[in-house]
């Protein structure tokens, strides 16, 4: 037996446990509720705080614990608690402690408005081992509450953030760029720099998703909030050199036509349990053919049998086959079955807005000409090579 060192230390975020063996499940997302105490103008999922029907249908404490236990048995190391607003669950503390005592790290997505002195004490004694992620909707009461549409939410969020800072609970911030707050981006980034755990600039959502459960009325208003592809490009290229450097790395790996294969992402290798016990292949995809009922099955069965079959679904929509299937901008485009589902209720319809965003970026990077369509480009490999080498 005798050895020099018996214990080695790994920083959690950098642990390479998962590179050594193929795990069934490395991380699990759980939407603890779809309800939210905010009513954000752009949100793709939130239900009203007092939606009693939704609350009644939510998984019970014991059902969630059972799912967490199974996740641990499948070697899961991290659970992400999201929502809606996960802190709305009255049993949040119980679930959090249960997950941590099972040896899971907890990644919490929250708006911070429901952070209490009791919770920060808890996070201080029993740390989540992952930085809490907070979405900040504005730097001023007027802008913040124009997004959340809840009086007092600005003060509540900043109170929560201050408590986390006081107790030195690691967190990062991100934002959603919307008409009420988009002029505050510099102020936001300046403030974000002062947060000790921000090791890179904050991320933004701006090409907003439509409602995950499809809602034509709300979708109309979300569409109106979307920035134009030109505006989006301006924001993406604010740090132009960094953007181009990242795009070169990205393009060298991920640019190619996907042909009729719909699932080329990680969807279904992990997944997201919705508030009612349906296991989705990702946080967004709720197409009935793609979700698995955990009340009548198990994570293992979904991951080993259901999702692999789902991943074999091929595109059949002629429009998709003539455009997306032949488009080499795959790495720049957010087109996927989930986005198609949210926009059109199908898995394989080209999402026009995302197509325009991808083309705008490709034109900026010199990958396509002013009037060219990406699916018409035959020598795309040469264009990528030239771009990566810096010749375009």
């Amino acid at each position, binding site marked *: *037996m*005798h050895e020099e060192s018996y214990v080695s230390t790994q920083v959690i975020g950098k642990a390479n446990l998962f590179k*050594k063996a193929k795990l069934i499940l490395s991380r699990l997302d759980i939407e603890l509720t779809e309800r939210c105490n905010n009513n954000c103008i752009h949100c793709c999922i939130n239900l009203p705080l007092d939606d009693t029907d939704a609350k009644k249908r939510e998984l019970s404490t014991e059902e969630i614990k059972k799912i967490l236990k199974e996740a641990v048995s499948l070697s899961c190391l991290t659970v992400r608690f999201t929502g809606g607003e996960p802190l709305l669950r009255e049993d949040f503390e119980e679930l959090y402690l249960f997950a941590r005592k099972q040896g899971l790290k907890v990644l919490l997505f929250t708006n911070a408005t429901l952070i209490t002195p009791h919770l920060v004490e808890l996070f201080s004694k029993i740390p989540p081992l992952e930085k809490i992620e907070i979405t900040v909707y504005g730097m001023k009461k007027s802008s913040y509450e124009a997004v959340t549409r809840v009086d007092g939410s600005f003060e509540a969020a900043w109170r929560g953030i201050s408590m986390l800072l006081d107790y030195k609970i690691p967190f990062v911030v991100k934002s959603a760029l919307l008409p009420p707050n988009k002029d505050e981006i510099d102020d936001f980034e300046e403030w974000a720099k002062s947060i000790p755990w921000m090791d890179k600039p904050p991320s933004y959502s701006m090409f907003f998703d439509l409602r995950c459960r499809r809602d034509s009325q709300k979708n109309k208003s979300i569409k109106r909030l979307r920035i134009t592809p030109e505006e989006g490009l301006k924001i993406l290229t604010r740090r132009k050199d960094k953007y181009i450097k990242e795009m070169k790395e990205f393009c060298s790996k991920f640019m190619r036509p996907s042909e009729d294969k719909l699932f080329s992402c990680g969807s279904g290798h992990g997944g997201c349990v919705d508030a009612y016990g349906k296991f989705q292949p990702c946080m967004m995809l709720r197409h009935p053919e793609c979700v698995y009922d955990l009340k009548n099955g198990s994570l293992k069965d979904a991951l080993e049998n259901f999702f692999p079959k789902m991943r074999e679904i091929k595109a059949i929509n002629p429009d998709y086959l003539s455009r997306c299937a032949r488009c080499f901008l795959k790495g720049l485009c957010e087109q996927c079955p989930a986005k198609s589902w949210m926009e059109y209720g199908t898995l394989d319809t080209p999402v026009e807005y995302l197509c325009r965003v991808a083309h705008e970026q490709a034109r900026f990077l010199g990958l396509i000409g002013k009037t060219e369509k990406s699916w018409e480009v035959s020598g795309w490999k040469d264009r990528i090579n030239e771009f990566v080498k810096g010749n375009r």
Partner: protein
Amino acid sequence: MKSGVSLNNIYKPSEDVVAREVAGEFIVIPIASGVGDLEDEIFSLNESGKSIWDKLSADKSLRDVALELSEEFEAPLEKIEKDCVGLIQELLKRKIVVNQGNN
């Protein structure tokens, strides 16, 4: 003993950690703050470490642990005792085990 670890003492896993096998690796994950030097560290035990860890319990002195392992592995007791002391030293330093004394 120079190391501060006594074979007569009982050492047991702290209630502030949980041990799990993930991806074929035996890891110890902190539950409460104060384990290890940083808040975001996990600890991997090697094969020898895992064998010793599995034997640690509230009613067994470290010498008993070493005796059991010496029989199981058919290895010299002196060498196993050295392993046990080495591991416990490392774990105590990180507050992963607690010293229960020699009752």
